[in-house]
């Protein structure tokens, strides 16, 4: 259980530069938030204090941006300077990433659609969100059907 807490804390730190800053100021934050052994707490404090933690946080954000940038490129362009605060707020509200690119893009599109947008951004979003939703529906329609010969038992018709 303790290793699981260590790994959860490490994932949380990677997703949150604010938590990294807090732990750097006050390492005891870790033991307040997670059930850790003394060595695990020291290890995490060391990771958080390392210069490489910035790279972890940057790559987390870059990789989380990837499904949005790939599937909603014109929307991102039309949002311009509004993209950064919008997507940061989205990540705060949806801290759990989804490995399914279309689900992640669809979720962000819904989040943005509920905000005030310029006409250009609204038009780009409507067009691209419709494409994403279409692909997602097609993907869902195929779910449960095996494309492999001798597929998993639960996917054999």
């Amino acid at each position, binding site marked *: 259980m303790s290793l699981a807490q260590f*790994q959860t804390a490490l994932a949380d730190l990677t997703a949150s530069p604010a938590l990294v800053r807090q732990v750097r100021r006050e390492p005891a934050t870790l033991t307040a938030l997670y059930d850790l052994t003394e060595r695990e707490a020291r290890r995490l404090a060391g990771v958080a204090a390392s210069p490489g933690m910035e*790279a972890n946080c940057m790559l987390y954000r870059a990789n*989380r941006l990837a499904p949005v940038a790939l599937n909603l490129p014109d929307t991102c362009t039309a949002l311009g300077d509004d993209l950064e605060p919008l997507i940061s707020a989205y990540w705060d509200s949806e801290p759990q990433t989804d490995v399914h690119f279309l689900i992640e893009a669809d979720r962000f599109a819904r989040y943005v659609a509920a905000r005030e947008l310029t006409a250009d951004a609204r038009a780009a979003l409507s067009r691209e969100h419709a494409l994403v939703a279409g692909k997602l529906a097609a*993907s869902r329609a195929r*779910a449960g059907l095996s494309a492999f010969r001798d597929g*998993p038992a639960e996917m054999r018709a």
Partner: protein
Amino acid sequence: MTVSSPMVGLLYNPAVPLVLDALGSRVDFVEVIPDRLWYDFGVEAGPQRFSHAQAAIDELRRYAQDRAVVGHGIGLSLPSAMPMDEGLLDQVAASDRDLGYQWYSEHLSMFLAPNRAVPNAQAGMGLPVPFDEEMLELVAGKVARLSEALGGRRILLENGVIFSAVPEPEMSEPAFFNRLHADSGCGMLLDLHNLYANTLNLGTSGEEYLAQLNPEMVVEIHLAGGDRLKGHYTDSHSRRTPSDVWTWAHEWAPRFPNLAAITFEYHESYHRRLGLAGIAEEIELMHDLSRQVGDQRRKVAAQEAAA
């Protein structure tokens, strides 16, 4: 020890068919990331959890014909302190039954934590693991389960890119791989570019790392190129292999008696930047390396026969 030369291949991505159409006879094998062959709607979707990418699988099957295939997963996250994802494992096993992997590799990095996931974007990031007895036991058990699910298939683990090493290790990373190999038979996928990135980011010695490895366990080598990012060096799979990595490859690959494959990894978004000519040159350089390894093996075999 085999006297044959290692195979030369590419990590398969949606741009690789362009390379295979032009240079197919020079590519001995493709390395497949099965996680890219389906969409995962999550455990809560029940029997509708996975949606196979039919067109991608059909295309891969065509290009895999008459060519060896190896599997290289990112989704099982063996070092995670949670039970193996048996649903995902079923999918990996199904892909293996269809494509017939020569072996299957995963990463010695954490991509999943309880109720958390790290977006990896294929070439992106895994988080570091503590090199200690607890992790060794956890990973060895998962390796055994994975091999069992794949009908006894050989399993390899890849050394990862580490930006912030976990302090207070009980053993070095090479010692961890050596122990894992001794305890479970797990082989090593030695990513020389990841090692290169770690030497730049952590200030460690690549030569010392390589000298500590049990040479018997290295079955595959990965080559790739990366980018500088605000004072860090990333394994972005965006460029050709740096010259320092080639130097290591030529110095060390002939010392690995069970080395069976040399793989170049690049991400499809950089296909245009690399260019077909650039990728062709990488492939020919890998063939040069493979020949060097084969020549060395034949020399050793002749010496042993004469003794």
